[in-house]
């Protein structure tokens, strides 16, 4: 197998990772500083979670740095961000954020069952993230402003007040229980599908597909047991359950950047795709003349392949195989196998086999 590194400078990844981790740590420190009002409202009960969260952010930053160094990834991010700043591009991104991330329409098109299970798991996890990070990083805290009234304070800014035993307060105290229930139901549905559809999902594995489900269920159950212990068991086993919950959450946070959960950051690149496909000039196939792609994407793909030492040009022409649509690429190979001349009608060229299973400009033809 040919192996080529992504960049000539072998220290580029280390340098960029170090820089990005430094930026993330500085931002995190100041967010904790301002969130906790200069450490005045620092929640020491969540100290273990705090370090695991910081480490999770560091590992995630390193993984994202490595990912964005890949030529195709870098190219798509750059093009997407450039296009996003036009009014039309911005509208596209807002719309895609809704359909892809909020509604997850593409999963509904796969099957309704998977959509339901994924909505439950993803929203369970995302909302849990929001609550956990806000509390662990001390961005949010509650202050007792009157004998029976709490005030929610975000980054030192008072947001709203609630009576301590009101229905709203009850819903908020148990926020993580509700998201935990969503996650347990979703994971149960996913486990059922993975077990009953084993023959169809042949590529699934214990480590990659089953372990994350068990982990999420373990986190949700241990978390909910804390409430059970506090409300119905007079606090029995509370410390043990709290420790078990902390261990499962820390395992999750450290496992997050290198596991199935890694697809979460990837989905943000998907938001760029509809805009990338729609907002650019169409390109015609060099052989049949049909619109099959955008000129920008073909040029991006050719640049990427050149970076990876995988260019596939048609010899003695300016064309690459990617200048033809997929149908014409397949037919061209087969006609070449017959030793036939192949007319690229749109490009006004005639090509022939190059004797090494590729194609070249027909001898005597002008470029």
């Amino acid at each position, binding site marked *: 197998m040919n192996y080529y590194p992504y960049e000539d400078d072998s220290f580029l990844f280390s340098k960029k990772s170090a820089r990005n981790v430094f930026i993330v740590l500085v931002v995190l420190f100041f967010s904790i500083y301002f969130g906790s009002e200069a450490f005045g409202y620092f929640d020491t009960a969540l100290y273990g979670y705090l370090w695991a969260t910081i480490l999770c952010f560091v590992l995630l930053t390193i993984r994202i740095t490595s990912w964005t160094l890949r030529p195709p990834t870098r190219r798509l991010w750059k093009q997407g961000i450039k296009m996003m700043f036009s009014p039309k591009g911005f509208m596209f991104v807002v719309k895609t954020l809704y359909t892809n991330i909020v509604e997850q329409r593409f999963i509904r098109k796969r099957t309704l069952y998977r959509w339901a299970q994924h909505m439950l798991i993803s929203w369970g996890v995302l909302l849990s993230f929001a609550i956990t990070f806000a509390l662990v990083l001390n961005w949010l805290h509650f202050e007792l402003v009157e004998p029976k009234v709490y005030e929610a304070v975000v980054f030192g800014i008072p947001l709203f007040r609630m009576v301590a035993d009101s229905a709203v307060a009850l819903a908020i105290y148990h926020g993580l229980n509700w998201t935990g229930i969503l996650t347990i139901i979703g994971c149960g549905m996913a486990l059922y599908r993975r077990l009953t559809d084993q023959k169809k999902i042949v590529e699934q594995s214990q480590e990659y597909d089953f372990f994350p489900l068990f982990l999420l269920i373990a986190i949700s159950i241990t978390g909910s047991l804390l409430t059970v212990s506090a409300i119905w068991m007079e606090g029995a086993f509370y410390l043990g359950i709290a420790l078990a919950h902390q261990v499962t959450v820390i395992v999750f946070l450290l496992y997050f950047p290198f596991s199935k959960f890694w697809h979460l950051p990837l989905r943000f690149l998907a938001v760029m*795709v509809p805009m990338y496909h729609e907002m650019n000039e169409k390109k015609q196939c060099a052989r049949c003349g049909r619109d099959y792609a955008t000129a920008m994407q073909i040029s991006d*793909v050719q640049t990427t392949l050149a970076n990876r*030492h995988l260019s596939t040009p048609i010899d003695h022409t300016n064309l690459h195989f*990617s200048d033809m649509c997929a149908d014409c690429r*397949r037919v061209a190979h087969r006609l070449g196998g017959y030793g036939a001349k192949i007319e690229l009608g749109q490009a006004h060229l005639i090509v022939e086999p190059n004797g090494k299973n590729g194609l070249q400009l027909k001898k005597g033809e002008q470029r």
Partner: protein
Amino acid sequence: MGKVLYIDYERCIGCKACVIGCEECSGHDHLSRMFVDELNPGETVATSPTPCMHCVTPACAESCPVQAISIAADGTVLSASLEKCIGCKNCTYACPFGIPKVDDQKKVMYKCDMCYDRTSKGRPPMCASVCPTDTIRFVDEDAMKNEPPKPVQFKWDFGGTIIETRTVIGLPDTETNQFGYREGEGV
């Protein structure tokens, strides 16, 4: 080395049994990954099937911005992983053989995985099982590459870029025009 697909396309009669067989494979979700192309429509009846070529260094995987395309231990290039694929179509343009397809609605790329559920247990892929003319066969890789019964393609030179594929293509006999089985060879 294991077994690979061998396509002797001068034998193809264009029946498209492979296309339908592919659709029926249990892991394929009723989406066919096989192509049968008419080579000179209106002039000849020549057709050819094309499965994935299973490149040793696949351009589809190299061009994927989210590393969704993985290679199984036996060298089979798998379809994009469902949770990672963002439907950008880079793979469909990068593949010099024109193989990957993308479902725009489901936002997922799908391509021949050599019926991984079958081949990982030693059974032939659906297309090879149903082909009535032995155009598509599931053969020993070493034997087909080292002692081919006729000229074959599995190493491709595109302007100096060498791409080696696991799938082997048998070339039509344009010298003696002896189509079909050759005497004593059985291929």
